[in-house]
């Protein structure tokens, strides 16, 4: 894959849930190596965007396109998106009773990295190494996936999956919510290990806290299903000082459409 | 309604056991085509009503009496029962209701005079076979609500009766429903017009008085589109050594967006310590959520009768319709209760909730029997059932026999049930706070039933709590 291929281009994306419009024309381009932060008030559509990018069945796309590695993601089934290198750290990871973490990850690694690409022994080595790096007890690898896990354990497990699947585009959906500072550090450590010139990242968050651990190159503010403001890291501090209302007032002005490349 | 003395209508053990000395107009015992014609003639019914009865009678003749495991009673001689009994002097319309009958209802806490009537509750009082009084008529008429005795409705709104009677519980539905359809003598009819929210609770109070009779009343409630009604039913009977049969049929129809809430406090005479006497309460109650988003909610507190056999159910046909069943069944002495519900999910996204609390004491048998069925078209159907039993003493039995069936992959059904006795730890804890054991048991039982009691209209809820307390006294074996 080359860098140009791995650029994510979201153009005019509109989506609704149960007939109610949530995204009202989102434009966003993430190039390999770039870390973008997406902030916004509750209900602005942040999580909808990540869910739409992975094709969650509850969300209906009503317009626009999402290009990644030469394909329109919106036309692909969820698993094809994952196999193309898109990884979403879910805000609410689902439990699968009876299926162990190791068993599940072997199936996922076979699916994403190719069947037989990783031999069983190498897989286990890599898995244990990843678990150690994320300070996850080995015993977790034989527990049922997310079944009875605490919030922090689930988030670490998401990052472990990310490390094993080696995505070229990482979407973090409020991964910091509900994490104590130690867990946040561990999670950030995992993300930063993946970060590099080949990987694009979108960090969706409500708070600036995670951004001190994963410093973004670009910051966008989503209001009412549209990117109301874009800028550099300084935007975070400005937002903290002035709140979202300041952006809302700005959004009422003629439509801001940064970075649109038709 | 707050001024209603709470120790009134349904409470005590068993202070409703008196007999009222009135002259009764009756028919000879026995059941045949002539008796049915006589009943129909006495009531001045049109031909189609007589035909309805005769059809039911033929269906009944072809059926055999159900025999359930865990319910036992000696054979009933259906030819020994009088199928019609009415106080002779009935002239309510002139304000001249038989004073003895009026007194009876006053003793039961149900004043029938418009001057003393209960606030917030319109009452239809049924004495033996006939409706003797209906209160609050004028106000209801202004809203377009029809609430009257069944006999009156047959004359006043024959088209509505013909349209809905037997449309939820067909004449041949089961042995007792067929019997009721053939011989029912009165009951209540209620129609709520589109969009009307009935401002008062509607209530029927059933009283069996005469000896050797059965009571076969019929209730039909139709809630038209977008209407709402809450309905209460209470029952008592005198103490007699013989067993008396009560075989009622209740039909509820909810059209689009309509809601019906039906609450029962059943305190028929349960028989004495040795199991002599008491009412056989064999009742068919069914609601039909015919319209989309309609809702039917059954709440019952069953503390009386020698034998109870009833399964108020909901046919959830309208998409998004909701059925609920909340039940407390208390059995003591030699009582047998076999009760539960049926929820039939036909429409899409239909929901049902079942909460059943059984308490067995003495040598009684208390059985929950239920059916939740999801038919192939009922995608998105949801059911949750919780059936708990509490045992008091070591000579009683508690049984739970649910059936859960699904033919749809997009339906979710959950059933949970527990049986246990009152926890020693809970008792000990309450006693350590100075509460005597009897009061502590009572408290725990009330807590156990809370989810059901809170479904009752407030004044009924207060009574139900008291009633259960009294019923529990001396039940600790």
């Amino acid at each position: 894959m080359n860098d140009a291929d791995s650029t994510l281009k979201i153009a005019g994306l509109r989506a609704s849930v149960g007939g109610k419009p949530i995204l009202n024309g989102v434009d966003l381009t993430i190039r390999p190596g770039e870390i973008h932060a997406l902030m916004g008030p509750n209900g602005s559509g942040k999580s909808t965007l990540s869910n739409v990018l992975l094709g969650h069945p509850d969300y209906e796309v009503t317009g626009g396109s999402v290009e990644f590695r030469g394909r329109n993601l919106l036309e692909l089934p969820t698993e094809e998106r994952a196999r193309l290198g898109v990884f979403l750290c879910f805000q609410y990871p689902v439990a699968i009773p009876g299926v162990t973490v190791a068993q599940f990850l072997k199936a996922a690694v076979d699916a994403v990295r190719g069947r037989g690409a990783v031999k069983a022994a190498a897989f286990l080595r890599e898995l244990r190494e990843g678990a150690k790096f994320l300070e996850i007890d080995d015993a977790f690898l034989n527990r049922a996936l997310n079944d009875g896990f605490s919030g922090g354990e689930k988030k670490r497990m998401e990052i472990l999956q990310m490390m094993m699947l080696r995505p070229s585009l990482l979407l973090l959906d409020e991964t910091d919510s509900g994490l104590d500072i130690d867990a946040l550090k561990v999670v950030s450590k995992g993300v930063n290990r993946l970060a590099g010139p080949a990987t694009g990242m979108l960090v969706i968050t409500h708070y600036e806290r995670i951004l001190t651990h994963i410093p973004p190159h670009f910051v966008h503010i989503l209001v009412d299903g549209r990117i109301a403001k874009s800028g550099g890291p300084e935007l975070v501090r400005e937002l903290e000082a002035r709140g979202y209302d300041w952006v809302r007032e700005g959004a009422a002005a003629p439509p801001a459409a940064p970075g649109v490349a038709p | 309604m707050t001024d209603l003395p709470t120790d009134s209508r349904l409470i005590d053990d068993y202070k409703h056991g008196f007999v009222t000395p009135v002259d009764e107009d009756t028919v000879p015992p026995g059941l045949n085509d002539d008796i049915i014609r006589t009943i129909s003639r006495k009531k001045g019914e049109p031909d189609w009503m007589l035909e309805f009865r005769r059809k039911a009678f033929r269906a009944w003749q072809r059926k055999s009496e159900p025999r359930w495991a865990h319910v036992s009673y000696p054979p009933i001689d259906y030819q020994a029962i009088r199928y019609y009994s009415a106080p002779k002097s009935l002239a309510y319309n002139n304000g001249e209701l038989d004073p003895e009958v009026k007194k009876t209802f006053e003793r039961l806490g149900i004043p029938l005079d418009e001057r003393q009537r209960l606030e917030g509750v319109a009452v239809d009082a049924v004495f033996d076979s006939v409706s003797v009084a209906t209160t609050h008529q004028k106000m209801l008429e202004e809203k377009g609500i029809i609430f009257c005795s069944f006999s009156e409705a047959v004359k006043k709104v024959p088209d509505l009766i013909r349209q809905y009677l037997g449309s939820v519980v067909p004449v041949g539905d089961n042995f007792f429903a067929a019997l009721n359809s053939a011989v029912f003598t009165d009951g209540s009819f209620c129609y709520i017009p589109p969009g009307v929210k009935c401002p008062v609770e509607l209530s029927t109070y059933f009283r069996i008085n005469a000896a050797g009779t059965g009571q076969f009343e019929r209730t039909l409630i139709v809630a038209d589109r977008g209407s709402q009604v809450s309905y209460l039913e209470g029952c008592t009977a005198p103490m007699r050594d013989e067993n008396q049969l009560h075989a009622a049929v209740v039909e509820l129809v909810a059209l689009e967006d309509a809601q019906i809430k039906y609450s029962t406090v059943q305190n028929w005479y349960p028989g004495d310590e040795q199991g002599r006497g008491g009412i056989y309460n064999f009742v068919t109650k069914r609601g039909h959520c015919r319209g989309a988003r309609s809702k039917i909610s059954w709440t019952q507190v069953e503390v009386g009768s020698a034998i109870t056999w009833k399964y108020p159910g909901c046919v959830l046909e309208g998409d998004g319709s909701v059925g609920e069943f909340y039940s407390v069944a208390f059995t003591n002495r030699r009582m047998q209760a076999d009760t539960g519900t049926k929820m039939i999910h036909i429409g899409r996204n239909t929901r049902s909730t079942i909460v059943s609390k059984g308490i067995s004491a003495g040598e009684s048998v208390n059985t929950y029997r239920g059916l939740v069925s999801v038919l192939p078209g009922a995608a998105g159907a949801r059911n949750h059932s919780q059936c708990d039993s509490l045992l008091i003493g070591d000579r009683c039995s508690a049984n739970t026999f649910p059936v859960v069936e699904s033919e749809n992959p997009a339906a979710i059904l959950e059933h949970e049930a527990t049986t246990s006795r009152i926890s020693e730890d809970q008792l000990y804890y309450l006693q350590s706070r100075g509460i005597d054991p009897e009061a502590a048991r009572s408290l725990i039982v009330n807590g156990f039933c809370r989810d059901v009691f809170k479904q009752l209209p407030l004044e009924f809820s207060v009574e139900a709590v008291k009633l259960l307390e009294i019923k529990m006294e001396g039940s600790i074996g």
Partner: protein
Amino acid sequence: MKLETGNLRLLFPGETEAVHALRAAALDRAVSLPVPTGMEEDWRRTDPRRFAIEALPPAGAPARVTPDGAESLDAFYDVVVRVGSAGWSVEDRSGVLAGGEVTLRTLPEALEADPERTAGLWNLVPAPRPDDRFESLARAFHSLALVLRVKPGASLDRGVLVRWREPEGRLFAPALLVDVGADASLAVTEVVESSGDGPSLSLGLTRFAVGDGGRLRLAHVQRAGTGSVRMGFTHGTLGAGASLDAVTVHAGADLVRTRFSADAAGRGAAARVGGLFLASAGQHLDQQTLQIHSAPDTTSDLLYKGAVRDDGHSVYRGLIAASRGAVRINAYQRNNNMVLNEGARADSLPGLLIDADDLKCTHGATIGSIDPGQIHYLRARGLSEPEARRLILDGFFEEITSRLPIPALRDAVRVLLGSRLTA
């Protein structure tokens, strides 16, 4: 074939008087019991006429032959018994039979060695639900009855594997009696197969008695072909402080109706019962369980999990029965079902029948399907929808599979389920 005592001598020539007496008594009992019509409460969901007992000739007692045809699973057992149309054989792989700690006899041999105990076990029935006509017929027409006995205090490291391979075109009635002495320990695995997909009818009888402080692990894996119609009757008692750990797997046959019951009859007895079933195209599975508590301080813990797909139909009927005097008992029963597509059907009838007061009995039943959120999550990790569904179902079954006594058996069951799910 007529259900007449006179026919028994013709069908099973040369038998001892003791065995013939058991057959004749069972046939008399069967004939005295009503023929189910389908109107009975117990038979509303399964058509009794499909069990056409009189349509197929009963299989006679097979001859004993020398063992051959080992399969990989066999290596994990001390004793392997193979029963097929060619005859039956015993392989004493670790010499435990030779050592005398464990005996394996045919019913006639056992009746001679220990008549009362053997006949008692043979005729054992669960009190709250006595035997029906079919169970009596299983006794009357049993093809081969084996009696496995472990001496008090003895234990086997690995256990006994019995492979039943039912013949085509016959009424086949295998029976297994397991007698575990006080403080003894035994694992028994039954694998039931059919020799083809032709029509066959099987009536299986299993009885067990676990002495005080004894331990029995029972596994039953049924993977018969599509022509198979079968009934199974399993019942046993547990002595004081005895324990049972049983797992039943039903993945084959066209029509199955079974009843599993265990009576915690001695103070402190404990039963743990698991069931796993899968009903696919054309399959009808009707299973009944009975947890009987006739002694104080007993526990039972039951979990049956199943999935239905295509036009498969499953019926689960469970009952916890506590008799008077059975105080301080704790009984648990759960049945979880997955309806995998429209056209499939699952019925669940959990029941509690309680005549005691100092106890805690709980049952639960669910019917649902695979959660779309779980499928989406797995697809977001690159798995296809069929792969995701498979994995979720594997996980669903794992709770039972993991209860099987031997790792190799667990693997064999996982493979079996996998092949049935992808078929």
